[in-house]
């Protein structure tokens, strides 16, 4: 069948007419299938939500228990039929609970990747390759300049800076869901055992990751305790990037501003944000991962969603793969990079 009849963009999001459901809709709809818990993909107010256990838990943490009229757990790999359309969920390797959603009807299979990465991440299940006819890919880092280095090397630079400047605090900006926990886990894997201080905005999500068996070591709120005389000298502090421009950041002595993000690959980006120690660490695919994945899915057609669509579309053309941008609106360019 014509794949556009199976899935196509609408203002609310990606819509499946025969199944009458949306994937990651940006406006409230009756029935939503959600790939992962980042706020631009997982909005509240839908009538019915189908997502993994973890994603539903994260939505409840972020939006409250009444984030949707009803919710249903999707198990990884299980086939669910909605109005005759076969739907299955497969790990995307992006953040805890993240999936790609495969939609199949009359022998045509479309995979909507949501956000994904290929590099190993100790805080979530690894990406699973799902062969398909049409692959819908994100393109957050869809430019050949984005080539993420090895995560361990980036964490090693952070730890080295901490030994080089033992009297300064190191403030790591990291998005609250996924990136923050990954940074903490990688720092632990690198052998750092001291208490890590976290901004209040991370507390509940960190607790949730721990409850899911991801050990984050000793965490403590980055609040000033006058009796303990802690001045955060030499401390490692993790917080959402937005907090660093805030009053909150002023409590730290002569801080080294670090930011864990794929955008940090570009020096000017780091410079503009006043980042002294860029940590190039992303939960999205880099250019090499994007094109590797497109090739491996065997898809004869690629639809490109949020990010830098034009370069990826161009690459597909050069490879003889049919490609087009979907121009979905409402997803953040920088949101969860």
């Amino acid at each position, binding site marked *: 069948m014509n794949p556009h009849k199976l899935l196509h963009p609408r203002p609310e999001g990606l819509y499946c007419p025969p199944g009458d459901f949306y994937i990651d809709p940006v406006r409230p709809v009756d029935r939503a299938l959600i790939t992962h818990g980042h706020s631009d993909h997982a909005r509240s107010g839908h009538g019915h939500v189908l997502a993994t256990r973890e994603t539903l838990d994260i939505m409840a943490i972020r939006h409250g228990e009444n984030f949707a009229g009803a919710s249903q757990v999707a198990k990884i790999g299980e086939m669910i039929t909605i109005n005759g359309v076969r739907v299955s969920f497969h790990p995307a390797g992006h953040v805890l609970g993240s999936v790609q959603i495969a939609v199949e009807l009359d022998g045509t299979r479309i995979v909507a990747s949501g956000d994904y990465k290929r590099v190993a991440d100790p805080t979530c299940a690894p990406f699973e390759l799902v062969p398909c006819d049409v692959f819908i890919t994100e393109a957050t880092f869809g*430019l*050949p*300049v*984005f*080539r993420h*280095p090895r995560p361990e090397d980036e964490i090693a*630079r952070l730890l080295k*800076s901490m030994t*080089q*400047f033992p009297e300064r605090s190191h403030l790591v900006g990291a998005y609250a869901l996924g990136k923050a926990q990954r940074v903490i886990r990688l720092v632990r894997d690198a052998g750092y055992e001291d208490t890590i201080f976290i901004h209040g905005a991370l507390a509940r999500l960190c607790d949730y990751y721990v409850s899911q068996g991801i050990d984050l070591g000793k965490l403590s709120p980055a609040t000033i305790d006058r009796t303990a005389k802690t001045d955060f000298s030499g401390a490692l502090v993790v917080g959402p990037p937005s907090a*660093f*421009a805030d009053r909150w950041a*002023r409590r730290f*002595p*002569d801080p080294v*501003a670090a930011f864990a993000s794929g955008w940090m*690959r*570009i*020096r*000017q980006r*780091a*410079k*503009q*944000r*006043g*980042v*002294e*120690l*860029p940590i190039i660490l992303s939960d999205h695919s880099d250019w090499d991962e994007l094109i590797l994945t497109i090739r491996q899915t065997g898809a004869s057609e690629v639809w490109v969603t949020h990010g*830098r669509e*034009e*370069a990826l579309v*161009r*690459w597909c053309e*050069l490879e003889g793969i049919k490609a087009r941008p979907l121009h979905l609106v409402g997803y953040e360019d920088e949101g969860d990079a």
Partner: protein
Amino acid sequence: MKRFAELLDRLLLTSSRNAKLKLMIDHFREMPDPERGLALAALTGELSFSSVKPALLRTLIMERMDAVLFTYSYDYVGDLAETVSLVWPDGGLANDRDIPLSYAVDTLHAVSRSDAPKVLVSLLDRLEPPSRFALIKLVTGGLRVGVSARLAKQALADFGNVEVHEIEELWHGLTPPYEELFAWLEGLGPKPEQAAFAPFRPVMLSTPVQDSDLSKIDPADYAAEWKWDGIRVQAVSENGVRRLYSRTGDDISATFPDLLEAMDFEGALDGELLVGTPPEHVGTFSDLQQRLNRKVVPMKTIREYPAFVRCYDLLIDGDEDVRTLPLAERRQRLERFVTTLDPARFDLSPIVDFNNWEHLERLRVAPPHPIIEGVMLKRLDFTYVAGRPKGPWFKWKRDPHTVDAVLMYAQRGHGKRSGYYSDYTFGVWKGDELVPVGKAYFGFTDEELRQIDKFIRDNTVERFGPVRSVRAEPDHGLVLEVAFEGLARSARHKSGVAMRFPRVSRLRWDKPPAEADRLEALTAMLD
């Protein structure tokens, strides 16, 4: 190469001077010879290669990737070296092992011009992006990481626990990778011999006059001279070698062939480099700028802006080191010395006669020449010593220029001011938009700092890390009266001018931004 690239990247993004020093010192400590010496040479601008032109880089990358994808990439990144370093195909070789900086330097030095592209490609194939970036910046001569040669020498001095002028005095006799220098600094070898011909002698500097200073000293003990607004230089000519040095010991001979030609003496002179025809005509600092920071100076510019030195002091007289003599004696020798030189290229900085401080003050505020920026006071019985001792030499500057400018951006301070926005970028009007003309971070009281900080927090428009842009509209914003010492043309600033030593002299809460100065007022001061 990896460690070197890492050092460059950290220096590039670190603004604190102390942190930069620490990064360099650690590098000198951790890296073996010759790697650390080559890194030092790169930072001090002593490494040069038969340069690779940007066009070659473009050609090389176009052979390797789709032109459209390259254009998207370059448009996004904005810097050719960085773009190429990122999009260069991996070839799977980069992960094998790191190439030492010394290997890259040796290979590039040994190569012929025609083989250079091939060799560059083979190096790029084997490096990771940050190292590729460092390599490209090295071979294209565009290494700028916010570290001056002077700061690198300071790091060396701190590393070896010696005075920076000891390093400067030795510097011109040394060559990369400076193994004997490092051995000495680590206490593993003797101090390198002063090997250079016509070496630089570290200069003596003055301290500004403070309010109470003059009451404590006797005018009879001091000589006064005008302070000229040029650049301090040292002209050395010994055993047939002629060199012109900046105040920090940078060899600037190549920029001033006209002056070098006239250095037919034996000795070392300390003076102010100016342009014009002495003694009557002296060009402005902006005229002098035409001759500075250029590798090649067009003949026309040399003719239009002839350089000369207004001599302050004599350090070496023939083959005699006279720095240990008191100023009064050096001055007598200087006066004799200068009479033997070409008067179009060397003249004497005149002594200003005065009876008491009030008299000198009257002279100071109304100097006989616009290029005078104040007076110098020098103790007649003092020897010539390196550095900035307090007492023997004072500078007493003329009151600076002022301009009313509008606060545009503010950045968080350092150290005890780190809780406040204390570094200010200000601008003046050009048409109906504000263009930044400078940055100031002192000149206000703690109480004023708190007021400005509050204004910034209440009027933030955008945040970029530690920097905020603040409301700066014709009828809403903060006007700062900014005092500065001088003004020069600058192609690097959007406004076309660069201020010397700007500082906040008054807060003009009373003044609407619309009434702040216009750029024309500044450009008028240039001529």
